[in-house]
């Protein structure tokens, strides 16, 4: 089991590294990347430079390029759908994994990862990554919170609830 965990750890790090690299590489379409195909549905995106000289943008005296704070002039990455495939070397050979993202105001709104692994172990570890990278939520007791309202379906149609009760009663008899 110890070896398995180590391999799992390494593979996860590798896969995460590939995904991060793919995300960073996506918007810079002018760079030549050997690692895969890029399909972006919006036009070329470069980091915008400010057209007015604002005193709030700090300038590095050693570097003529101004440092642009995130959010000062809008999203860094153009809204839209992006996808890329990243390849990596595994003990079983070259493997690849595909990532698609929808970006809005620099936030990932949806993401999909498709594993293209051919080797058995790589398939397993890609699977582990795909299953686990999402944001998961849990519930918190309403009685512990200070809410004005709850939005949900607990107030299901009254007749519906009564019907379900009747059906359940019939099913028991």
């Amino acid at each position, binding site marked *: 089991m110890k070896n398995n965990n180590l391999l799992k750890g390494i593979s996860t790090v590798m896969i995460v590294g590939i995904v991060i690299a793919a995300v960073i590489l996506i918007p810079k379409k002018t760079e030549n990347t050997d690692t895969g195909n890029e399909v972006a549905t919006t036009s070329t995106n470069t980091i915008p430079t400010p057209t007015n000289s604002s005193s709030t943008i700090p300038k590095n005296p050693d570097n003529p390029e101004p440092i642009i704070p995130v959010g000062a002039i809008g999203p860094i990455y153009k809204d839209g759908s992006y996808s890329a495939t990243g390849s990596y070397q595994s003990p079983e050979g070259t493997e690849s994994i595909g990532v698609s993202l929808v970006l809005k*105001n620099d936030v990932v709104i949806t993401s999909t990862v498709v594993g293209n692994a051919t080797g058995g172990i790589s398939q397993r570890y890609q699977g582990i990554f795909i299953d686990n990278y*999402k944001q998961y939520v849990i519930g918190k007791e309403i009685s512990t919170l200070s809410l004005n309202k*709850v939005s949900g379906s607990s107030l299901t149609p009254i007749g519906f609830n009564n019907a379900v009760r009747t059906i359940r009663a019939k099913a028991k008899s």
Partner: protein
Amino acid sequence: MNKNSFQFTWNAIGTTWVIDIFDSNFIRVRSEEEIILLIEKIKNRVELFEQTYSRFRENSWLSQLKPKISEILESAAYTIPSDGKILFDLYQTLYTLTNGKMTPLMGQVLVDAGYDEKYSLIQKKELISPPELKNIAEFQDKETIIIKGIAKFDFGAIGKGYLIDIVCEILREEEISSFCVDAGGDMHYQGENEFKIGLENPIDTSKVIGIVSLKNKSIAGSAGNRRVWDISSQKINHIINPLLLTSDTNILAIWVIAETTTIADAMTTALYFTSAEILENHFEFEYLILKKDMSVEGSLLKNQALELYKLV
């Protein structure tokens, strides 16, 4: 809420309505008769809407939309009531955007699946996909609908949201400035404060998966797990894909925040059938989708007003 708020509640359109009025002078400037009249005005307006558009009422205007049936089928023209034009318009747009998956012609499928006026929840017969909208109805200058074929109309996906907006208008006309109109968990809040709304965990309704604060906006939610029943060998809920004749069991709940409850309500159904990107080209809204595995996605995630309880 605070001590000065006024609340009244009643049942209509198959759910419980709760109206909260937060104006501190609401009671002071009105006589008891005036308050009673206002409550009656609202209840009557809701009842009128139900009489006109309820699929569950045989004599509603909507239920009576039929072609002339004699030896052959002949088209029949009907004047659309003034409050129906927006609904037909919206359904036509969403029908196109979802490639026919969100259709106003779901009535027969729902009845056959058991979601009838008696809530028998027993499948009556094999489900048949509804006909294409263009084969059933033609619209003339937004005033008239021409019915060419037989199909049951159902406004369930948008009707409640629209009715909530109508009630909000009545309150505004009364010069009430701060209120919440809530019909079964879909609601609009107007006022000065941040209104905290818990997002109910569909799996355990004693819990919420997060809280969203809103002000002068509507929120609508749709969950697939409450109105669930069995037909054939599958679980079905009240949101049925008319082409596949199945329900999506991967989505646990969808919440939408928008300026109006009409749009919020419409989007909670539309998002089952098409992508948010397509809808965002036509409507302004924020959404959150909760999947069966308890993962979340959606544009509401970038809103600071949302606080989610996350598994770390």
